């Protein structure tokens, strides 16, 4: 506690540090909310300037951007079906349908509160248990466990958002197939690139996600407008009531735990945390068929989990020097620019720096609560703009976002192709969520399966020595069998497509 107070005093006693804190907070929220131009863009832009900052200020700036950036992407996901970053994609599954029902205020309010709660819980855990948790997670989670986690995630995702279980599997399978394009993750052999150097680098997920979510949504609304069936969403500024939140306490706690543990694992991070949080909410719900139609629990689960991953991602970074994602990898660069090495020695040699970072993340999450409330009361009014004026803005933002990733015109083409494909797939009852999850998890899954196979010398019995991996694989198989059981033996449909 004394260290936390000391870190807080160091943070707020210096005007420069306070300005950097506020700048990081607002910058992260802004960049997080603009599709394509994510918090990573901001991190990359400011990286060269951090050399002239004090080391504690530079590291603190990135940790604040991480917290506010992950939250920022939820706003556009809810209002326009444009996730600011992949970790906000599951927020759009229920957040956007809530907007269409005139419940945008509730969805954004829930995202604000849950992002702050998830982030705060994660920051507190991070402060109290960094070295112990980091050592456990790194030793207990190897490639077999990560592959098993991916398998379980895919099995659950196949049951979300499609008209039939077969279409759920087809959606996930299509995502996995898109992820195969490029180089194979073991030996770097070319696959499905047809001699194109562009395709050799694989199909980037940012243009694909923008296409499947934003462009397909614009096309669907355009079709409704052309057919005369378009209904403008109602603007509502109601925050969720305390009673509504209290009903979701288990979902919040569950997502906190999922987000925290997913955040610790290197390479998994906030994206899988958000998908897992959402999937588990569906799996444990008594009314799973209502997910994807505007369930507050969907928004709550996804946003709690992705923000809970932010504090957790600092644990392997600070304790072991292992980055969990792109932004934490940039933080390693900041450490190196100041001739420092993150790892166990940081806790001994730069204790002040560590506690300034911890305090900054704690207060960044509290600030999200206050700023987010203001944002809810203002940003929701964007929905008053007629959709046919908003649609070109969305298309142009998505175009710039897709191009900004790698400065390639082909990425824009890929985005619009994905958008048209998404339009037809959504019309035919396929799940965009499944495709995106398959796309994101495909590479991670294949890479870890290959490493696990090599590690266990291709011996199936070798898996039995990895209880966590076996447990996750069994859960995945049970999830699949449960879907199949319902399909074959259910006497009555639990719902109809027209529900």
């Amino acid at each position: 506690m004394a260290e936390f107070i000391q870190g807080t005093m160091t943070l707020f006693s210096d005007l420069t540090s306070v300005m950097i804190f506020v700048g990081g907070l607002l910058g992260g929220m802004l960049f997080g909310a603009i599709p394509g131009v994510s918090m990573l863009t901001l991190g990359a832009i400011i990286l060269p300037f951090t050399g002239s900052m004090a080391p504690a200020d530079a590291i603190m700036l990135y940790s604040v951007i991480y917290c506010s950036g992950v939250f920022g992407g939820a706003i556009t996901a809810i209002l326009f079906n444009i996730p600011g970053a992949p970790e906000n994609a599951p927020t759009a599954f229920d957040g956007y349908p809530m907007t269409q029902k005139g419940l945008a205020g509730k969805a954004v309010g829930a995202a604000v509160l849950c992002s702050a709660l998830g982030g705060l819980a994660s920051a507190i855990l991070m402060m109290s248990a960094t070295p112990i948790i980091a050592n456990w997670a790194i030793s207990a989670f190897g490639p077999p466990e990560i592959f098993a986690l991916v398998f379980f995630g895919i099995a659950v995702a196949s049951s979300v958002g499609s008209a039939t279980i077969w279409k759920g599997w087809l959606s996930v399978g299509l995502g996995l197939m898109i992820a195969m394009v490029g180089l194979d993750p073991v030996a770097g052999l070319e696959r499905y690139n047809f001699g194109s150097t562009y395709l050799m680098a694989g199909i980037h997920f940012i243009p694909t996600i923008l296409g499947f979510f934003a462009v397909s949504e614009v096309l669907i609304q355009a079709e409704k407008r052309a057919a005369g069936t378009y209904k403008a969403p109602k603007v509502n500024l109601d925050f969720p009531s305390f009673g509504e939140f209290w009903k979701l306490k288990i979902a919040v706690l569950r997502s906190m735990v999922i987000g925290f543990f997913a955040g610790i694992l290197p390479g998994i991070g906030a994206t899988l945390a958000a998908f897992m949080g959402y999937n588990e909410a569906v799996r444990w719900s008594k009314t799973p068929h209502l997910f994807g139609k505007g369930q507050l629990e969907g928004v709550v689960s996804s946003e709690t989990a992705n923000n809970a991953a932010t504090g957790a991602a600092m644990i392997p970074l600070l304790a072991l020097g292992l980055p969990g994602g792109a932004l934490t990898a940039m933080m390693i660069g900041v450490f190196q620019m100041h001739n420092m090495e993150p790892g166990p020695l940081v806790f001994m040699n730069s204790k002040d720096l560590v506690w300034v970072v911890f305090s900054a993340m704690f207060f960044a999450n509290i600030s999200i609560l206050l700023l987010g409330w203001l944002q809810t009361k203002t940003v929701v009014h964007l929905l008053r703009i007629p959709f046919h004026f908003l649609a070109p803005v969305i298309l142009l933002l998505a175009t710039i976002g897709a191009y900004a990733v790698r400065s390639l015109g082909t990425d824009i083409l890929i985005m619009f192709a994905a958008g048209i494909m998404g339009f037809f797939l959504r019309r035919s009852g396929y799940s965009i969520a499944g495709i995106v999850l398959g796309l994101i998890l495909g590479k991670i899954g294949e890479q870890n399966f290959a490493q696990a196979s090599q590690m266990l010398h291709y011996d199936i019995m070798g898996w039995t020595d990895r209880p966590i991996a076996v447990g996750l694989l069994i859960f995945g198989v049970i999830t699949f069998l449960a879907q199949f059981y319902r399909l074959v033996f259910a006497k009555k449909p639990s719902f109809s497509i027209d529900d």
Partner: protein
Amino acid sequence: MRKLVPGQWIEFSFWFVFTGIAFALTFDFDREIDMYRYGAAGWPRVVIVIVFLAALGQLLQSLFQKETDTSQSSASAIAEERHDPIGPQMWLIMLTPVAYALFIEELGYYVLTPIFLIAYLYLTGERRLKWLLGVSLGIFLVLTILFTKFLYVGLPTGNVPGFYDFGSWIVQILQ
């Protein structure tokens, strides 16, 4: 047994042809890797077989399911299935952004974007000239200034002489 509509036949044909071609193409990279027994084609083949089986399952369900029986997984249901044809106006709305994407690197963002915005607004039903021009220009100016001047995002200036010069001139003015 139910009769499938033409849209469904197209859908199933797509999946079977797609998986067939994808599987055939795996032989292009089916080479041995010293350190990895399953090779570069192992994972893709498993995924393709799963996709094929899922498509087969969907076909059988569509053929043998009763009209009212929609026995799906309890967690599905967002999606609605529609197989009605797309009208010519909708095709134009879809293909306009594709044309924009095809020419953006050659003609540049700064020339092509205002034309694209006007065309898109027109196709989606806006016919009032003042609104058509005003809204298109407003969106273009606000987003271009935001991204070019404040966020330093490099947007395509074009390759064709004249178009490139114009694009570079705008960037110079803004920055």
